[in-house]
Each structure stands twice: as structure tokens, then as C-alpha cells.
């Protein structure tokens, strides 16, 4: 077991280096993506600030709102995953064969690709967010406690892993459906809204707030930011318990869906 894990670790390292090299060759395209990642929350911030200036009563402070929208681009990028589309394509056109007939897994490559691309994106995104933070510096503050940063970072890693597991579940639907674009599109609409990537969950209508605290998508984006900014709805301990619980459920379901799917795989093409 340990020998096997070490081998997978070495494969992951090699794949990470390969993915980093490949990602750097697409740095121009990635730069433009990151500009979009910063601009969209910035526009949202201006809209909400205008609403507050017009007398709107919000359940969160203006300083929390600014901190949220300044940091959300980094959190969103780091917890994002794009595995579902590529996994579905591999299943549909038989590209999965390349991994199944070797002593490795497409999932190790997907994880290495995810981490590799994020490293490159982070290098491009951090300077943009730093400029934004300097410009809006007097409108928000960040926590000074190291343990809060560390705890938020731990939750962020779990969030990223959960998003990736969700992608494995959605992508694996290609084992049974010829076209999973409908599922992908639905997830692209539902997940950002319910995860807090578009607006803080506290700004959802009153009727949704109770549900918003326990639903799994909260733990994909919003939760690590709530932990960092010290504003965890329902309390930190309960939030952590929910996140770990959902992580286990996601892992179990992703594993089950993959296991069932691989049994019905038809290895299309060559």
C-alpha cells in the first residue's frame, strides 16, 4: 500500500512537471482568463457598493463585502476544476484507453494538470489582486492571525478537492450519456451561485439562507473565505464538520460512479 502510494506520488510529480511546462506555453491565454477573473468580482463589488450608497440594507458590512470580492478571484481560481469536460471527452472518444492500459490513472493526470495550471494562474493572478488590494486598501482589512490563514488554507485545499470530485462525478456521466454538455452547463450555472462565487451567500434571499448553510456547494468556494474573514455562518466547528462530511460523501459517490462506469466502458475508437 505504502509502496503503491509512493509510486503514485512519483508519477504525480513527473506529471506535474509535464503539466507545468505545457501550461507555461499557454501563459498568454491564461493571463486573459485571469483578467476576467478579477474584473467580474470587481464589477459586482461596484454594483453592491452602489446599492449600499442608495440605502440598501445588507446583512453584512461594507468592509466584509469589499474583502470578499477582492479575495474571491483567488479563492475561486484555486478551488476551480475543469476535469469534467476533458474526462467526458476521454470517455466518449476512447482517449481513456491511454491510461487504462498503463499502470497509472487518468485521475492522477487530472490532479497534476489541475495543480500545474493553478500554479501558473496564481503567478499571473496574484499581482493583479495585489494592485486591487492596494487601490481599495482603506476599505477592508485582512486578518492578522496566522492560525486563521492556515485554517482557511486547509479548508481551501479541501474545497479544491471537493470541486474536483464533483467534476469526476459529472464527467463520469459520459459512461452512460452520449452528451454530458447539459449537465456541465447546469453545473456552470448552479454551482457558482450556490457556492458563493457570484455573491456572498449571506446576500441570498432570506428563505435560502438556512439551506445555504448546509448545502454542499457552500463548501466549494464560500467556506474557506468565511473562515479567513472570521464570519462563518452557524459557527466554525459546525462548518468544519459539515465540510469534512461532504468531502467524504463526495469521495464515496465519485468512487462509486467511477467504479460503476468503468464496468460499462465501451472503449470507443481504438
Amino acid at each position, binding site marked *: 500500500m505504502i509502496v*503503491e502510494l509512493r*509510486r503514485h506520488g*512519483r*508519477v504525480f*510529480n*513527473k*506529471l506535474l512537471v*509535464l503539466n507545468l*511546462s*505545457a501550461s507555461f*506555453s499557454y501563459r498568454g491565454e491564461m493571463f486573459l482568463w485571469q483578467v476576467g477573473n478579477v474584473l467580474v468580482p470587481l464589477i459586482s463589488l461596484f454594483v453592491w457598493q452602489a446599492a449600499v450608497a442608495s440605502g440598501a440594507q445588507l446583512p453584512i458590512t461594507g468592509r466584509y463585502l469589499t474583502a470578499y470580492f477582492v479575495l474571491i478571484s483567488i479563492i475561486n481560481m484555486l478551488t476551480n476544476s475543469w476535469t469534467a469536460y476533458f474526462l467526458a471527452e476521454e470517455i466518449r472518444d*476512447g*482517449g481513456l*484507453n*491511454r491510461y*487504462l*492500459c*498503463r*499502470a*497509472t490513472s487518468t485521475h492522477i493526470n487530472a490532479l497534476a494538470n489541475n495543480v500545474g495550471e493553478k500554479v501558473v494562474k496564481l503567478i499571473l493572478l496574484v499581482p493583479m489582486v495585489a494592485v486591487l488590494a492596494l487601490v481599495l486598501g482603506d476599505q477592508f482589512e485582512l486578518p492578522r492571525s496566522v492560525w486563521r490563514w492556515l485554517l482557511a488554507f486547509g479548508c481551501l485545499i479541501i474545497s479544491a478537492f471537493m470541486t474536483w470530485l464533483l467534476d469526476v462525478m459529472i464527467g463520469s456521466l459520459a459512461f452512460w450519456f*452520449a452528451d454530458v454538455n447539459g449537465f456541465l452547463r447546469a453545473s456552470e450555472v448552479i454551482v457558482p451561485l450556490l457556492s458563493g462565487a457570484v455573491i456572498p451567500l449571506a446576500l441570498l434571499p432570506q428563505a435560502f439562507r438556512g439551506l445555504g448553510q448546509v448545502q454542499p456547494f457552500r463548501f466549494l468556494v464560500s467556506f474557506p473565505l468565511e473562515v479567513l474573514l472570521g464570519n462563518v455562518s452557524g459557527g466554525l466547528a459546525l462548518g468544519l464538520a459539515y465540510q469534512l462530511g461532504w468531502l467524504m460523501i463526495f469521495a464515496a459517490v465519485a468512487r462509486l460512479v467511477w467504479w460503476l462506469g468503468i*464496468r460499462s*466502458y*465501451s*472503449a470507443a*475508437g*481504438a
Partner: protein
Amino acid sequence: MPVIHASGLTKTYRFHRSRVGLGGAITDLFRRRYDTRVAVADLDLRIDEGEFVGLLGRNGAGKTTTLKMFSGLLRPSAGALDVLGHQPSARRFEYLRQIAVVLGSKSMLWWDVSTRASLDLHQAIYDLPRPMYAESVDQLAGLLELSDVIDIPVRQLSLGQRMKCELAVALVHQPKLLFLDEPTIGLDVVSKAAVRRFLAKINSEYGITVVLTSHDMDDVSELCRRLVLIDHGSLQFDGTPDELVRQTRPRKRITLTYAGPPGQVELEVDREDTQRVLAEAAGRGELLDLEVRDADLDDVMQAVMGA
């Protein structure tokens, strides 16, 4: 000693049969029709160590499905399959480290980096000790004449160079069993010859068992000492290329070239009549050239597939 032992091996696919037109599409939304297709039916086969076997058949005959079951890509629907003492679809490391698969139409190489990077990755995948890995790379680079291309990004290589690199990457972990699916597809004659020479060598000198599917009868006739013909998912023939030719197109082909009219004459005669026909032909004029041969595999496969 059997490397592959299949008994009653069967694979069925279930697929959705769509209706025609808008009305059909709407009906499909609510009531889907499914059919089952038998891709491989009750196949019994044994392949021994060191063999070079060609799996032949028309498109959709079941040969690639068979190869995919052997390599663990597909789970058999019924029957028993033992490859190198393992059940392939379990895809255990101990099994996968003993096999290699080369798919002519699906590259195993990383497109944006060099072949050496892919080889390094395979060192990690198969947990190869450094000295063994270095020796294996040197050996393969020498046999496939890859020294000049091994450090060039794969996307910049020609198709022929790429196929050689595919073979090097597939074999770097020194497998016992190699599955090849159309390895020379799209290659020019020089590259095909180089790939065939390499395959013949690894089979004869290193004892690697090879199972090949190909529609290129030159690949098959040059490399395979045993042919397994599959049609409609069932075994139709299992024997040597000569036996297949004799069974399917038993007549000899004689080409006579006379100094005077009628010039060149081509005849097909029964095997037992060959001597008599040749004797008669010699008396009909001055012969410049005479050729007697069996039907080639291309003719045989046309006859088999057209039947």
C-alpha cells in the same frame, strides 16, 4: 506455456437505437429502444509464449474488441480469460507492468514535450530502477535509431518518427506481451519496413509475445507466424498463413511469358494439376519467364471478407 488463455470469451454491447425524424426524436425522449450486439461470441483461444499472432477480420468483426479484452480495457460479458496468470480487467499493477499496448490511432506520447519526458514518466509509472531504465532507453534508441529525435518535442516529429517513439515508450518497461493495433497505419514504406524489422527483432531475440491486429497484409505476412481470423465475433480460422492460403484460395497462380504471341498469360490451376499445366505450357512456344505462386494474403482476405 500459455500467455493468453480464453475460454467461451464473449462481449456484448447494449446500444440505443434512435428513431428517425423529429417525431422519432421526441418519442426517444420518453421511450428508448435498446439493442444488444454480440461483438465477440464464445471465443476459445490459447496463445503461447514467444508467438507472433495476427488477429484478422473485417471492420467490426470483433478483433479489436478481443484485443481490448486481452489488454484489460474491456470487461468480458461472459467466459473466462487468463492473461499471464491474471484477469486483465482487474488491471492490477502486476499485470499491467507485464504488458504494453500500442494503438496506431491513439498516441501515448505527450504532445508538447520530448519523447524523453514521456520515457521518464514511464520510469515512474512502472517503478523502474535507474540502471535498468537507462539500459532499456539506450537499447531501444539504438534499435529504433531514435538518438536524433528523442529530445525533440513530439509535435515536431514526422508520423514515422512518432510511431518509433510510441514503440520505445511502450516497451521501456520491458513487457512480456505486446498488443499492437494497426501500428503501421499511415506510415510510408520506409517507416513501415523499419517498424516491421523492429517488431520481428523484439519477438525473435527478446522473446516478447506479440498480438497484432492490422488491415495491412504486408505487416501480417512479414511478421505473423500464426493467424487468427475472427468474423461476426466468432473464430473462423486459426493456423499458419500458409494454411489459411491453402484453405481459402487453394489454386496456384501461374504466370507465363512467351517470346511470341500470346505474350503474357495468367492462369489459376488446381494444386494437383500444376505439373501437368506447366508441361503443356512449355510445349506451346518459347518461354521467357515462368512464375508459380500461391494467392497472396490480400487476395485471401478479400475472398474471406467477401464471402
